[in-house]
């Protein structure tokens, strides 16, 4: 029966062995552990007395022996590092290049998934204001300024309309909202309840209604800015001015085009607008064209002759609100197309296929070479997509035309430079093993050569090929040329099978 102290020491010694074993490379670990276990068995046998009574000195000696496992493990590790294949084996290989591109792609994708602006752009492209909805404004006034008096809206609402099916109205006022934890100054648009159905914009993150409180709709920007994009925001009660209101949902990012830059829309019934809003309060009027109105419309915008409540003739204009939002995918496809078009202007698309000898790479080698080039192009195209999102929406969580523009330009530039690099990289890759040729050596001097060759020679470290790149392209040597080395060269190279 072992004493507790003896068991404790035994556990400690085993623990030291296991800990040190972790330092040993896995391929050598089993044998290393086996040797030390055997040695430990003999050390114990030698140190512990025959009657097996516990001795602190013996245990200390055994533990001291075990501590030697660590320097030995480190030594085995160092020797293994030196004897294993040198890192140069992988350096410049096709697999390494694709791996790096893939890692960059994943990083860009990760950043994109964290940026809310990308989702906002998707939403803006998906939910757009109905193209049959017109913003009615005074012909002489700017459409971004409120110009329609509330009384005109009330008058139109009461009379049957031939050309319009629905009318919606709002006016914007700066008000303070209290969310319980903070006071926020918002542009509050007091709007008719039918505003969003008239515009054809469905609300997102909605909650069941059924409360007596007035409903408000948050703009996408205010939702992101003031509530951090909380998806469970609907149903929360706030105070705007002196009244309590309930958040009914969030307007889609496509509502960015609505004039007055409202942060929230406070939806009020028509009766309230009829009684509480003074007749001359200017606001924004939206009209949805009826079937007859659509048929009568000959151009995107229309002009309307009307009479104001005081029976004075006024000229109004109706302009559609829909400004085309291309959406991220359309922009990406366009940038990709532009990059392919511009590529021949910034780089030679030749891959340097001229050969100095009659040797030609096999079909399999050629196929692999083109698959590698295709994989590089595909990965660069993916990187361009996500990197352009990251650049465009790094600073803004909302959709904006500026961000769209940044996305288009950055996507185009990343594609163009990336494709250019891919072609240049491909030209310096051995057609046999796809590894980059190295050890550039300058051959000849242009000033001392007459009708001779001068340029740079590079060699494949696998011993497959020699690349000649002319310093000055001439009529007899304009492109780089590959010289295939025969098997007599192989003994000079350690790495022959590198991919």
């Amino acid at each position, binding site marked *: 029966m072992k004493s507790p102290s003896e068991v404790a020491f035994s556990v400690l010694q085993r623990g030291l062995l296991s800990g040190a074993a972790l330092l040993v490379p896995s391929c050598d670990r089993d044998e290393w552990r086996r040797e030390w276990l055997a040695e430990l068995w003999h050390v114990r046998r030698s140190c512990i007395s025959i009657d097996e009574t516990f001795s602190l000195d013996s245990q200390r000696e055994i533990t001291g022996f075990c501590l030697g496992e660590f*320097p030995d493990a480190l030594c085995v590790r160092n020797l293994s590092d030196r004897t294993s294949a040198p890192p140069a084996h992988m350096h410049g290989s096709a697999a390494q290049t694709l791996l790096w591109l893939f890692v960059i792609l994943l990083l860009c994708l990760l950043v994109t998934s964290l940026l809310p602006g990308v989702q906002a752009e998707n939403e803006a492209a998906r939910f757009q204001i109905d193209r049959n909805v017109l913003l009615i404004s005074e012909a002489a006034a700017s459409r971004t300024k409120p110009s329609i008096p509330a009384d005109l809206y009330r008058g139109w609402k009461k009379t049957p309309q031939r050309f319009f099916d629905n009318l919606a109205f709002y006016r914007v006022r700066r008000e303070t909202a209290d969310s319980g934890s903070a006071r926020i100054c918002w542009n509050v648009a007091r709007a008719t309840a039918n505003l969003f159905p008239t515009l054809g914009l469905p609300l997102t993150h909605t909650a069941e209604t059924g409360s007596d409180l007035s409903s408000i709709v948050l703009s996408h920007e205010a939702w992101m800015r003031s509530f951090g994009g909380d998806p469970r925001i609907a149903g929360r009660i706030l105070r705007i001015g002196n009244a309590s209101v309930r958040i009914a949902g969030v307007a889609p990012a496509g509502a960015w085009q609505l004039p007055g830059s409202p942060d929230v829309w406070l939806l009020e019934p028509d009766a309230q607008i009829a009684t509480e809003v003074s007749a001359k309060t200017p606001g924004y009027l939206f009209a949805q064209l009826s079937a007859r109105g659509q048929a009568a419309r000959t151009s995107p915008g229309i002009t309307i002759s009307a009479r104001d409540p005081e029976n004075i003739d006024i000229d109004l204009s109706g302009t559609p609100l829909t400004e085309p939002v291309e959406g991220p995918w359309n922009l990406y496809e366009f940038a990709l197309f532009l990059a392919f078009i511009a590529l021949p202007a910034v780089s030679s698309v030749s891959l340097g296929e001229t050969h100095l000898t009659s040797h030609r790479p096999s079909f399999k080698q050629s196929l692999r070479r083109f698959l590698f080039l295709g994989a590089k192009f595909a990965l660069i195209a993916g990187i361009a997509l996500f990197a352009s999102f990251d650049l465009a929406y790094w600073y803004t969580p909302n959709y904006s035309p500026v961000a769209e523009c940044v996305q288009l330009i950055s996507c185009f530039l990343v594609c163009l430079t990336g494709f250019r690099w891919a072609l240049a990289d491909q030209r310096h890759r051995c057609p046999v093993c796809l590894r980059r040729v190295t050890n550039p050596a300058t051959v000849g001097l242009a000033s001392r050569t007459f009708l001779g060759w001068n340029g740079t020679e590079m060699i494949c470290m696998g011993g497959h090929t020699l690349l000649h790149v002319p310093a000055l392209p001439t009529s007899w040597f304009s492109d780089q040329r590959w010289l295939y080395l025969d098997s007599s060269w192989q003994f000079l190279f350690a790495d022959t099978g590198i991919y």
Partner: protein
Amino acid sequence: MLAMAAEAKLSHTAAMILQAISAGYVYGFSIMEMTGLPSGTVYPAMRRLERDDLIRSQWERQSIADAEQRPPRKYYKLTADGRATLEASRKRYPLLDRLISTEEASSR
């Protein structure tokens, strides 16, 4: 050529270990006991000697260990290069023979 190169690099500790193995102390723990060196010195030194092809290791046969009811041990022996290097080291460290005499070991 190799022996001369190894001789130039061989430390006194490594020479002692080679001498111990030559004297018949062919296990790590027995070399420790003979040389008085700690385990953290002896085992790494033996790894390096093995890397330089001065010694060679071999696992004891399982049947022998089973017969004696103990785990099999890894034992070491000198290679031809190791013997040449040891000879050269004895000239460099004349006391090596006195520290671990081959006769003493052979009588064990």
